[in-house]
């Protein structure tokens, strides 16, 4: 029982990181119907940016987090501006290929600057609390609470501000929105800023929780987060969060009870089966077009 509880805590930690990244995929897809395959690499850049400001500027946790979020937000906005916006009217496939290209660029750019894996120095005092045999670390608490806070902020923005209404409107009909007096490009930039910022924050937390960061770390984690978004119902914000936590839980529980090499194999088989029965994802709705 305590073992299970312990693993649940680990699952929450991993799940919140997946969920934060999945939000970036889902937001961009939600408004532009485009899959930003460079998003996993935004996550990686977040980890490295954090490493740089902590190692070379000795920033403490909160300022480092702020700089990471702002830096990766800017990266997202710039990438959208120079690489994706010119392709907005182009076939979706071209935009997706561009996104893959941006991802490879970011990986190799980082590799050129830092050929060896790095590790982020401890940023918060490591404290462990043991309650009834279950160990809770200060890092776990921070990761889970910070993720929930960021996700709530995002939820609030999307549901209760004029920018959020504009995002949801763009998702329905991007060509109609300008006729309401809404500058679409600005809303798209804000969307990229928010999504990338969350991805960057996830990169930092991942780097704090796991021993090494390397330029390719965003690939597999990015794929997993993307799959979380699809499982939850891509384009659906609550779905991305749900998908992230589900994937985190499946991975941790599989590793807990089966040989750890089975982890990805079992986790992905389960997700594939789920998609067969819910092709639009758990919370996704098929959007019927009138014929």
């Amino acid at each position: 029982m305590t073992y299970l509880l312990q693993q649940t805590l680990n699952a929450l930690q991993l799940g919140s990181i997946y969920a934060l990244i999945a939000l970036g995929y889902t937001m961009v897809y939600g408004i532009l119907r485009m899959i930003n395959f460079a998003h996993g690499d935004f996550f990686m850049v977040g980890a490295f940016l954090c490493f740089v400001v902590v190692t070379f500027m000795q920033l403490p946790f909160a300022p480092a987090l702020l700089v990471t979020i702002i830096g990766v937000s800017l990266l997202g906005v710039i990438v959208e501006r120079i690489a994706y916006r010119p392709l907005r009217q182009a076939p979706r496939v071209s935009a997706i290929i561009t996104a893959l290209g941006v991802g490879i660029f970011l990986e190799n750019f980082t590799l050129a600057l830092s050929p060896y894996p790095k590790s982020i120095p401890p940023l918060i005092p490591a404290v462990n609390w043991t309650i009834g045999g279950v160990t809770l670390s200060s890092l776990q608490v921070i990761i889970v609470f910070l993720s929930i806070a960021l996700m709530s902020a995002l939820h609030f923005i999307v549901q209760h501000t004029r920018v959020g209404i504009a995002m949801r409107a763009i998702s329905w009909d991007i060509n109609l929105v300008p006729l309401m007096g809404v500058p679409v490009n600005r809303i798209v930039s804000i969307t990229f800023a928010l999504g990338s910022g969350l991805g960057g924050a996830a990169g930092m937390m991942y780097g704090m929780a796991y021993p090494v960061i390397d330029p390719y770390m965003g690939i597999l984690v990015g794929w997993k987060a993307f799959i979380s978004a699809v499982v939850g119902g891509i384009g659906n914000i609550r779905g991305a969060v749900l998908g992230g936590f589900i994937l985190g839980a499946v991975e941790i529980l599989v590793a807990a009870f089966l040989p750890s090499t089975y982890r990805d194999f079992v986790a992905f088989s389960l997700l594939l089966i789920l998609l067969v029965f819910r092709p639009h994802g758990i919370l996704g709705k098929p959007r019927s077009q009138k014929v």
Partner: protein
Amino acid sequence: MPLLNVTDVTHSFGGLCALSGFNLSLNPSELVGIIGPNGAGKTTLFNLITGIYRPDKGSIAFGGSELTGRRPYKITSMGIARTFQNIRLFNELTVLDNIRIAHYTGSRYSPVEALLHAGRYRAEERRIIDRSLELLAFFEMDHLSVETAGNLSYGLQRRLEIVRALATKPQLLLLDEPAAGMNTKEIDRLMEFIRWIHSEFKLTILLIEHQMRLVMNICERLVVLDFGVTIAEGTPRQIQDNQQVLESYLGPKNLELGGGLQ
């Protein structure tokens, strides 16, 4: 001074000339109708005025400033709003949010203020929601504010589209076939409705319509388009008696009116 001045506008799609050398001048608070067969270039004109298309040639001025080359959202915030032939609402959003989004230009607060629930955020959002509900109440739709727009009946969707256009505080309202899909009785009510918003909101209205009864009854002036050129212009009475108009609508053979096409 005219509110809208369209001068010598030409626009073509590939080899097809949708509008050629088109001129139109609207005075403040006029109610003008554009008629003409399908494909005459009427909706193209609306798309040019609202900045969806950019004319190949010519100029469009609104209240003295040039519109060509401006982005659609700028043009909307300058005071031009429109509706569509086939209703285009944000079907997945609530009725209230469909109106709230039209207030975008009128609100100013920073994201930080929004997240902290402080400063201008509360006051601004409250003001927008209040104004939206007021506007909905004015059109007897406030009880539907939490309904999803896509679930409304056809007639209510048409009405909501006009309310949404009015929420952007236009001086000029462009109505694209407002009577499409309506029966005689509904058209009667629509005519009253257009007259009412015309005076109540002190609007200048330009409307496209095929329903002759509607345009003949409410428009002060009509412009007849065919194959991208103006073939006639005048009061409804003058248009009714115009040979060329009858021909372009009915073909040269069918001059005896009365019966009509089945």
